[in-house]
């Protein structure tokens, strides 16, 4: 059987795809900037990811979950970084990482699913929009062409749903079907509103994936991906995780980096990392959450490596739906909370700063006497990334992308001029 993807690079690009109205080459030159949004599903415990080791109440209220002052990687007098964030800390030292604390979306309930919907649609309420804010921002960035945004998934997540069709990509596992067969399927799908468009987009992404990953030794291999499927199963966390599963996040991030680095590839990508819902035996420098943090750190490091020289044009926003309770729950974990952390990293980022209005951890300062009180709207960070990095016009932000967010202007000073 010949290799479809190799063939796609040549003849198919000119025939099948142009016949479908989608070209390999995009219509016009676009920005060199890359924006990656990594969504950490399950609600990250910000007080372990970025422990406020300088806060006088931290050790007491966190009890068995407190990170020792000496264990944390130094940030400033109030905050440290979890020791498993080794590569992120290198970026901090290189002034390529901004850390945000006491930040949250406008959503104030505690459902994962509504919380993620609010984070991804960008509305003040989870059901305010049916499409994702990142999709609504694409036209203003000159990226409205189908396929300029990439989801590292079989199917695009809510944040990328909308008018522009996102490309989706996962490493191949099944043997490729032959060209003649695909051509016949394409004909059957020609008038199908769902399947026809999906197939065209998939073939197009595969062509660029092929071009971006022509070195087979660096391409994400199939084996870790089988792990990725198990890995993505998220929740209940007291079991040991297989090493292959942890490695797979790295493979996915690396693959995304290669696709983004291609001159004519996507400019926006979304990565999904689940498994942060630490209700039980969360651990501190070691344990469930520490392993998760290490996997995220490795994946973000791999993304940077894969982007190569393009890293200088890249910004990565790392966000989660909400935080967790300040005090441990009854089983060595934490329950759903409110304020949490976010990160911004990349070669375009004015790093080496923590952005936090810190109200402290005294009971009176907490949200509903249990959660970290948020003092920043995460949409201010999203807006800064869109306008200062991707040069989306401010009027787009206010009118179409985040229309109900006028009280949360873009944060200033997050990017190098």
């Amino acid at each position, binding site marked *: 059987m010949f290799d479809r993807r190799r063939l796609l690079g040549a003849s198919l690009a000119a025939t099948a795809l142009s016949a479908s109205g989608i070209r390999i080459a995009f219509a016009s030159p676009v920005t060199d900037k890359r924006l990656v949004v990594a969504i950490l*599903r*399950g609600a990250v415990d910000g007080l372990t990811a970025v422990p406020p080791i300088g806060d006088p109440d931290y050790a007491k209220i966190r009890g068995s979950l407190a990170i020792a002052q000496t264990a944390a990687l130094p940030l400033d007098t109030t905050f440290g970084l979890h020791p498993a964030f080794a590569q992120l800390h290198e970026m901090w030292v290189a002034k390529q990482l901004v850390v945000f604390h006491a930040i949250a979306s406008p959503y104030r*309930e*505690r*459902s*994962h*699913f*509504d919380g993620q919907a609010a984070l991804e649609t960008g509305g003040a309420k989870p059901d305010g929009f049916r499409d994702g804010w990142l999709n609504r921002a694409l036209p203003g960035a000159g990226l409205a062409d189908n396929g300029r945004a990439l*989801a590292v*998934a*079989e*199917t*695009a997540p809510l944040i990328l*749903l909308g008018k522009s069709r996102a490309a*989706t*990509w996962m490493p191949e*596992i*099944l*043997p*490729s*079907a*032959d060209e*003649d*067969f*695909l051509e*016949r*399927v394409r004909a*059957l*799908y020609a008038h*199908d509103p*769902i*399947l026809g468009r*999906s197939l065209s*987009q*998939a073939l197009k*992404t*595969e062509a660029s994936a092929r071009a971006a990953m022509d070195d087979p030794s660096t391409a994400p291999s199939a084996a870790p*991906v*089988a792990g990725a*499927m*198990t890995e993505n*199963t*998220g*929740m*209940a*966390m*007291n*079991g*040991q*995780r297989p090493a292959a599963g942890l490695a797979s996040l790295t493979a996915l991030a690396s693959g995304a980096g290669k696709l983004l680095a291609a001159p004519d590839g996507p400019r926006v990508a979304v990565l999904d990392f*689940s498994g942060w*819902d630490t*209700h*039980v035996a969360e651990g501190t420098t070691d344990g469930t959450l520490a392993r998760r943090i290490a996997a995220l750190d490795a994946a973000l490091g791999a993304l940077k490596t894969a982007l190569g020289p393009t890293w200088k044009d890249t910004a990565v926003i790392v966000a989660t739906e909400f935080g967790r309770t300040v005090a441990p*729950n*009854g*089983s060595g*974990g934490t*329950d*759903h909370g409110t304020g949490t952390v976010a990160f911004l990293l990349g070669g375009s980022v004015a790093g080496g700063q923590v952005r936090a209005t810190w109200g402290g951890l005294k009971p009176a300062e907490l949200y509903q006497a249990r959660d970290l009180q948020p003092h920043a709207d995460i949409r201010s960070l999203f807006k800064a990334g869109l306008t200062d990095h991707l040069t989306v016009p401010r009027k787009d932000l206010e009118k179409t992308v985040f229309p109900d967010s006028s009280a949360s202007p873009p944060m200033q000073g997050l990017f190098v001029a």
Partner: protein
Amino acid sequence: MSLEGAIAAHRFGLGARPGEIDAASGNPKGWLAGQLDGAVPQPTSTALQSGGALAAQASATLKSVRAAPDPAKQVAIAKGYHEIFMAEMEARFALGFTTARPFAERLVWFWSNHFTVSGVNGATLSFIGAYEREAIRPHVLGRFEDLVLATARHPAMLIYLNNAKSIGPDSAAGLRTQRGLNENYGRELMELHTLGVDGGYTQADVIALAKLLTGWAIDPQGQNGGFRFYPYRHEPGDIVLLGKTYPPTEEGGIQAIRDLANHPKTATHIARKFAGHFISENPSAASVEKLAAVFRRTGGDLKALSLAAVADPAAWEPANTRIRQPVEYVTAMARALDWSPGTPQPGTPEAKPLRRIMQSCRVMGEFPFSAPSPKGFEDTSAAWSGPDAILTRIELAHAVAQNAPATADPVRLADSALGQLLRADTRLAIQRAASGKQGLALAFASPEFQRR
């Protein structure tokens, strides 16, 4: 063969086996209703163990591991749990491929996804098959409150959503060990299983329900299905949930669950989800209200609910079709091929094709009881039709056809599998295929076969 017969076999069933559309065509609604008579079939395999036995085993294992930690032994134990799970899933897939009561099986799948437990946790993994056999199957044609209660007490759910670890802070055990509440199950029980996220409960209600269910945990001797109520872990004092006061007893928790299960908000939440699955992806308010009314009137009689969905004319609209989920897609292919994997011994060569086809579901992003969150798998066409997902399905259709028996006549197979749902252009494309296998692959990849 009637169009309604084909819709019955696909929208309410698992895809047609040879002759099935014929059998359904005379009286499609009667054909579906007949499948709901009698106990729901159980998967069969020599490997299946009860939740109680597994709880006793797991407790003994935990004890011995704690007494003498041994990493090699722990790996072996984890492997054993995985094998138990896979043997259960083999039997489940095989039942889906061959069952003569596919509507009943679809109901099982629907409710198992509604009451999701997920196998990422090694400790949950071994209980999952028993969970579906013991907590789900016996109740999918019974009353909703019994279904909720059965899931609440099963070791799989007690472990998965951490209720087994939740301890009343002021109980004897709480005061002694300094351990306390875990809100996880209490929240999801209201948000996902009963009232729905807009069900009108507050954070205080989440805590109240968690307190009401303290002491609900695993029985280490495996008695009573592996469930045991521990009074000394239960939070003392009356507890107010949604304005009603419950006593601090096991009965208080049971009553709270029954009240939640019969709450009007639950009726609407369940009706919307059920209609969304069986009637139309975006069911009309009228369709939802009809089901909700049946739910309320019958006190959550799930057989009545299922028949009410069948009775809704909207369920028979050809346009109300949607993309199959991966497990449904694989099952429909197996049924079209009349493939009966039997119940091979795990690890034998006979078991390999079944394992391979199961593995392909993982590749497509769905494997039973492996959902990314307690919400279960997404139940929308969009969730399963992204570009990469569709390409993967086409590749799978191709691979399955390559491995199908050479005798399979693709046009005849497409006719018998799809009946009047088979489009003229698809039929023509199959006839003109370069080979029988390519024709078969086209039938499986076709837009109508991707849908139900």
